[in-house]
């Protein structure tokens, strides 16, 4: 069996605050395989970005990993020292942030930022790094790369900038890329292009991608598998087609009902009543139970359900069966 | 702790006439033979003892410091008061009347702001000195100082008040009143003043510290309190001359006092600013 590029096992991240200890990531487990895109979807505050930050070692104090494992190509990385981690970042794990304008240093040219990254991780001369930088820009579809290598970030449009960011994340040839809301700050028309670019590059290079987003449409478009997060916990995990058409977790089901899908025609969008609980005020039992249409006694008391392994599973005592719920179109 | 220091210094200044063992300004009590006596050592001629020594003219250093502090504090408070009144009035006028008056006042403010306020104060002092006949110069020096420092500092107050006035003017009740034909100044003031009170107080505390330091500096430079009615700055200036020749106390004690005053006023100001800052509550 192919070894996963990233393997997270029962990861727990805690933030000590004055009001108590919060768990933005609670017992999360999933794998990402080379060449596959795993979408992480959920509302703001569900813990998706936090997981990504934990993987790349960029958790901001006082958040920290308290238990669980993070394995990169089989090697544990959650316990590395700061300097060891620095060598991995960029070289083995790349990261893309949401806002391409603020991700790039406005006072350095695009070329300079590329070259410094390349030189840091690959043992090449400056000239060669320059060539590689130009090649990287061409790969992400920037026209006239050789001339534009000396341009400043503000001289590019939003979509172009995100391409530059992707080029930067990929230029040291990592095995895993964490894309944190890469299209949220872009125009809808540009979003599709960026997603297509990301897909192509990752399949070609066999890179695993953790695609974090709150936009179901992006997931449907780009991901192979999807993980749904709720209140810091994993609610559902499975192949995109399965999860989107036959969601097992009532929350995912609710999400589908509130997402406009072409197949639905003119149905009214359903909204899940209430809102996701804040980390400091989690209910007992299953975190979704207060809003769940199908909640039973055991859901509200007792322990919280977790996903046991990474096959298509839902963290629910009573996962939904779908023969009757499938759309009749 | 700084609070304590400031309070005791201020108390000392206010009660100077009672606390000071000697009156340093009354020429009758001065005996030149007492000059240059060290601290707590009896004078070789008159056998008088002075706690902190005497200066070149036989004045008791302790008393002079106490009275000097009085002058420093008086000038400081008065100057800030002047700046505040001036700034508030100009700000109100600028904001309320607007138009060319506003533009003029703001232009003047901008021009004045191009220059450091100490320079402006020096200039004003020089001009005032020029128009005053020589005999009166010493007497009016204190008032000129207050004028100079106050005039150099009004801009911040004006800006804040002008801003608040402009905001207030936009409000409906003002526009309504103007439609009827009355501009309701008194009511406006009632609304404006509570708004500006906080920032004005903050600016005032900063200005106070700066004003006291400005006074000390100007006096030290010789364009402030004269040697006949010296403030701490003047004393330090006098003391500097004798730094090398051994009469260290003429410089030392006033300098320490000024240091303590400056530091504690600044700390107090910081503390006050934090306390008044609505964002930190």
């Amino acid at each position: 069996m192919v070894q996963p590029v990233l393997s997270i096992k029962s990861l727990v991240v805690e933030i000590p605050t004055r009001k108590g200890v919060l768990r933005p990531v609670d017992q999360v487990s999933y794998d990402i395989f080379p060449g596959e895109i795993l979408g992480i979807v959920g509302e703001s505050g569900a813990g998706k970005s936090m997981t990504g930050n934990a993987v790349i070692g960029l958790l901001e104090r006082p958040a920290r990993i308290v238990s669980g494992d993070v394995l990169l190509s089989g090697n544990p990385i959650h316990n590395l020292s700061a300097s060891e981690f620095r060598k991995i970042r960029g070289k083995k794990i790349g990261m893309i942030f949401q806002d391409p304008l603020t991700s790039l240093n406005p006072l350095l040219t695009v070329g300079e930022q590329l070259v410094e990254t390349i030189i840091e991780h690959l043992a090449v001369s400056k000239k060669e790094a320059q060539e590689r930088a130009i090649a990287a820009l061409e790969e992400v579809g920037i026209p006239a790369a050789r001339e534009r290598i000396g341009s400043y970030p503000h001289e590019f449009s939003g979509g172009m900038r995100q391409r530059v960011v992707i080029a930067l994340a990929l230029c040291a040839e990592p095995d895993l890329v964490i894309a944190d809301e890469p299209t949220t700050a872009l125009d809808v028309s540009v979003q599709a292009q960026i997603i297509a670019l990301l897909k192509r590059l990752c399949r070609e290079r066999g890179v695993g991608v953790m695609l974090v987003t709150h936009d179901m449409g992006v997931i449907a478009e780009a991901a192979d598998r999807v993980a749904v997060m709720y209140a810091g916990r994993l609610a559902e995990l499975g192949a995109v087609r399965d999860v989107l058409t036959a969601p097992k977790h009532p929350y995912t089901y609710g999400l589908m009902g509130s997402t406009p899908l072409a197949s639905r025609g003119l149905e009214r969008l359903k909204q899940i009543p209430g809102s996701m609980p804040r980390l400091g005020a989690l209910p007992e039992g299953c975190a979704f139970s207060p809003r769940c249409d199908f909640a039973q006694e055991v859901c509200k008391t007792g322990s919280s359900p977790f996903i046991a392994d990474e096959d298509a599973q839902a963290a629910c005592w009573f996962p939904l069966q779908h023969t009757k719920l499938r759309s009749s179109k | 702790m700084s609070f304590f220091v400031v309070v005791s210094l201020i108390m000392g200044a206010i009660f100077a006439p009672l606390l000071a063992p000697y009156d340093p300004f009354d020429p009758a009590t001065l005996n030149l033979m007492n000059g240059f006596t060290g601290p707590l050592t009896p004078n070789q001629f008159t056998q008088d003892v002075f706690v902190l020594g005497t200066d070149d003219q036989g004045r008791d250093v302790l008393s002079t410091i106490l009275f000097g502090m009085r002058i420093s504090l008086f000038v400081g408070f008065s100057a800030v008061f002047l700046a505040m009144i001036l700034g508030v009035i100009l700000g109100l006028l600028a904001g309320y009347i607007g138009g060319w008056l506003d533009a003029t006042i703001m232009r003047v403010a901008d021009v004045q702001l191009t220059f450091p306020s100490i320079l402006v104060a020096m200039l004003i002092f020089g001009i005032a000195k020029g128009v005053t006949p020589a005999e009166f110069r010493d007497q009016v020096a204190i008032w000129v100082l207050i004028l100079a420092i106050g005039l150099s500092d009004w801009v911040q107050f004006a800006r804040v008040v002008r801003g608040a006035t402009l905001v207030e003017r936009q409000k409906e009740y003002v526009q309504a009143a103007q439609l009827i034909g009355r501009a309701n100044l008194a009511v406006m003031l009632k609304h404006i003043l509570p708004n500006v009170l906080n920032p004005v107080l903050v600016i005032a505390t900063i200005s106070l510290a700066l004003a006291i330091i400005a006074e000390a500096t100007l006096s030290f430079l010789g364009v402030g309190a004269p040697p006949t009615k010296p403030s701490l700055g003047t004393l330090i200036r006098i003391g500097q001359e004798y730094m090398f020749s051994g009469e260290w106390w003429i410089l030392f004690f006033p300098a320490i006092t000024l240091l303590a005053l400056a530091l504690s006023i600044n700390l107090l100001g910081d503390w006050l600013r934090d306390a008044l800052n609505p964002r930190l509550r």
Partner: protein
Amino acid sequence: MLAYILRRIFQSLIVLLAVGFVAFAMFSFVGDPVDNMLGQERTQADIERLREQLGLDQPFIVQYWRFLEQAAQGNFGLSYRQGRPVSEIIAERLPATVELALVSGFLAFIGGVGLGVFTAIRRHGVLPSFIMTASLVGVSLPTFLIGILLIYIFSVELGWLPSFGRGEIVDLGGWTTGFLTASGLKALILPAITLGLYQMTLIMRLVRTEMLEVLRMDYIRFARARGLTEKTINFRHALKNTLVPVITITGLQLGSIIAFAIITETVFQWPGVGLLFINAVQFVDIPVMAAYLMMISVMFVGINLIVDVLYFAIDPRLRIERSVGGH
């Protein structure tokens, strides 16, 4: 860009005219120049003659214009105190102040940026806390006290450095410099530190604040995510972005260095234009006062202008997206 520069130049001219007016008003209303220049035994005829010579019988505006004309040529008449042309006196003393200002500005900048970066990178610890506290003290102390304190420690007690004057200076055809002699350099040290300390503290706090702000930016996070070393991040990315606003504000501070030079020169009896000015104020030597005023106005206004333009040039974003409006 050109429009912006022109507008700023126009504003500067207005300020200069206003200052010129104040300077001229000083001449007209403060004391009687004729009175000041002639001795005790003067006849009415002498007074009349001098009045005519000085053009004092002309209308106000004409006098004002002539004043401006002459000022633009550097002619401010004769000093009341010394009887020599003001421009000559100022030219003599200018090098002293300039050298002092340059050295102290340099010290302030290097020290300020260095300490600022240090306390921004190392936010916690004994040394940074100590430096921050010391800076608080540095800001609250009056400059002259610092000067006197330094004199006390280094001249009186230790005897290492001189407490007044410039030391030996070398005349380079009009410009006298203290850089070329050991005693000249030694004499520069204490005054330069005194003058520069306040500036250094300001710059340090500014750099620290700016840098802390910059270090929180997304591009710094992204640089970390790319595995760049802390050293690269701090000095290549953060510092560059920090310096842009710092340079602007520092430039504006140059003006106050000139003003504070007056105090420092007095403490150390440094024969520069600052000491000249204060003596002029004490003596009510109007021509010198007016000349000094005009001179530093030109300097301040000029510095503000240059800094504005420089800022424009440094930040590439502004070159393209220049929007309408003043500062």
